[in-house]
């Protein structure tokens, strides 16, 4: 009885007593949820179009952020001397995007093309390798210390009633929403978008009606690079550009399981649920077990989800026929 009181009733009472604090926790969770969603979005895009589960997405974000910082501070690649002209934020972002497109082309050439038609699991493992290469490369080129990133997103906070809201978080949410709308339009109503969806449905059928598969892959990986860049900017501005950025990739996995591997809205909703869930669990249930629930909460939620609804909230049901 005492146990039930401690685990179930206590935290609920606490929530009821200080609703404003609870809302603040929820807001904090929503904001980290937006970040998870951004990374998860990159996963979903690539998975939909090529069936490849890109483990390196988080490292993509790290690499993009590192490149951006490097360009903005005028760092010379490989030497860490600040001798190049410093680029303004907008020019650096464009230049970084070009780098990401180059990366997409390289990945398609070196990793994807030789592995066409291989098992999904082989592709997955090759992206683990890719993640390691990029991690080492990023550190070698730009140095491995923590860097500050400031692209001019306003900071500060204001109060609504008793709830404190960070302006930066609102910006992050706004950018994420904008990105989703742009991607939705891109997928639904442009020629390329239709080709992408065709490829996602059936590689062979798409090839036979004349859709160039390799171009499509380059486009998809470039778009994923763009999403990674945005995620990298957001995370980097918030907590500095550092190695832990690539660990978000791992957090995006449970997000995907929750939302479904093939659904863009799923990635968003899943990210928000995981973000809020782990913050609330940490604040209210964490003290009962010495804290740090955040590290595994998302995975265990995903595990439970896998048992009861493997395709996720919005994913396509996997039907196997003999």
């Amino acid at each position, binding site marked *: 009885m005492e146990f039930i009181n401690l685990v179930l009733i206590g935290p609920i009472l606490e929530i009821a007593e200080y609703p404003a604090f609870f809302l603040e926790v929820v807001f904090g969770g929503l904001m980290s949820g937006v970040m998870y969603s951004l990374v998860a979005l990159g996963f979903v895009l690539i998975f939909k179009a090529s069936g490849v589960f890109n483990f390196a997405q988080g490292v993509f974000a790290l690499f993009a952020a590192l490149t951006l910082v490097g360009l903005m501070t005028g760092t010379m690649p490989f030497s860490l001397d600040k001798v190049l002209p410093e680029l303004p934020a907008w020019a650096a972002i464009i230049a970084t995007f070009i780098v990401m497109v180059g990366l997409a082309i390289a990945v398609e050439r070196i990793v994807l093309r030789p592995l066409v038609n291989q098992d999904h699991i082989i592709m997955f493992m090759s992206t*683990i*390798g890719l993640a*390691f*290469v990029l991690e080492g490369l990023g550190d070698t080129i730009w140095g491995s210390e923590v860097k500050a990133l400031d692209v001019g997103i306003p900071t500060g906070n204001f109060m609504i009633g008793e709830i404190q809201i960070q302006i930066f978080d609102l910006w992050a949410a706004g950018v994420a929403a904008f990105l989703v709308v742009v991607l939705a339009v891109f997928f639904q109503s442009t020629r390329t978008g239709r080709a992408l969806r065709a490829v996602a449905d059936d590689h062979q059928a798409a090839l036979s009606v004349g859709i160039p598969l390799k171009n499509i892959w380059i486009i998809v990986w470039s778009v994923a690079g763009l999403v990674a860049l945005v995620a990298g900017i957001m995370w980097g501005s918030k907590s500095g550009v550092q190695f832990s950025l690539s660990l978000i990739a*791992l957090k995006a996995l449970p997000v*995907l*399981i929750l939302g479904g591997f093939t659904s863009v809205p799923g990635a968003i909703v899943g990210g928000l649920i995981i973000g809020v869930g782990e913050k609330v669990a940490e604040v209210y249930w964490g003290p009962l077990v010495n804290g740090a629930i955040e590290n595994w909460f998302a995975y265990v939620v995903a595990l439970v989800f*896998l048992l009861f609804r493997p395709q996720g909230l919005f994913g396509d049901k996997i039907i196997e026929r003999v």
Partner: protein
Amino acid sequence: MFYRESGQFKTSYQSDQAVFPIRQDLWCVVAFFLFALVVIPYFGTEYFFQAIMIPVLIFSLAAIGLNLLTGYCGQLSLGTGGFMAVGAVACYKLTTGFPELPFIITLLLSGLITAGVGLLFGIPSLRIKGFYLAVATLAAQFFLSWLFNKVAWFQNYTPSGTITMPPREVLGYAVTGPNADAMHRYIFCLLFVIVLAMAAKNLVRGPIGRSWMAIRDMDIAAELIGFRPFQTKLLAFSVSSFYVGIAGAMALSLWLGSVETAEAFDINVSFQVLFMIIIGGLGSMMGSFVGAAFIILAPIALTNVMVSWLGMQAVTAKHFEFIFFGGMIIFFLVVEPHGIARIWQLVKEKLRIWPLPY
């Protein structure tokens, strides 16, 4: 000329199905084993045992464990580090809780406990496949390392949070604890790993191994011809965890002596073991050994070459190591998905018809 099977007639099914059907193979393996058992202890130094031979053997065992699951049964796992932690903690709790328990029994029991935990996390594998399963095993990794870090009972309430193996003896020789001689630990490791590897080899070439491979190659077909997927997969999970758990227990007791569980068996260990079986060879016993040796030796060699000879900074060498390993993974997946073991097999094929290839 020297490596061929002409004149070796198989007169019984037993000899036809032997582990090493060609005599030269058997000689080679026995010679290698004797070399490791007799010659290496003769001139090996403390550093050589502690930094190279013992970790190679222990990680070989972990790689065998993961290979049983991933290479033979086709279930990807990213939770190897977590299961090694279970083995280590089980070993620690058993030795401190039951001081009179013989050390070998302790190791085997730690393996069994890990097998139980592995079974638990293997349950979702019935419904999910591929990277869905990888996420489930990631859950195991993070949950287990959190559990061992936060619950003080697993560390016997030591304030530092590290677990330290008390001294234990096997046949009168100290093999664990600060006073154990590196050579004794090495020899014990070697014998233990060889016995377990032989057991695994015999397991995978028998009915159990065939059922695993049937599931790996096409699970629906396997189900239709009468293999039960759930039982088969769970068996693979528990046997795999048994090996991985023993590897973890040995890493604590015979190699490191004292560890902080969450640090020593983190997610990087899981990746390391996965890389071992990809580079060594998925679905190959020899590949597990070769892969482990490669992954342990390559960083040491790289650091030596880059720092000592080329005069680069240690940090750069560390970054380069990442690029090197990632590159190797991609290279092997693209060029030779069956790893070094397959290359070795091809060499043997060539050697058979040398010097008169037809």
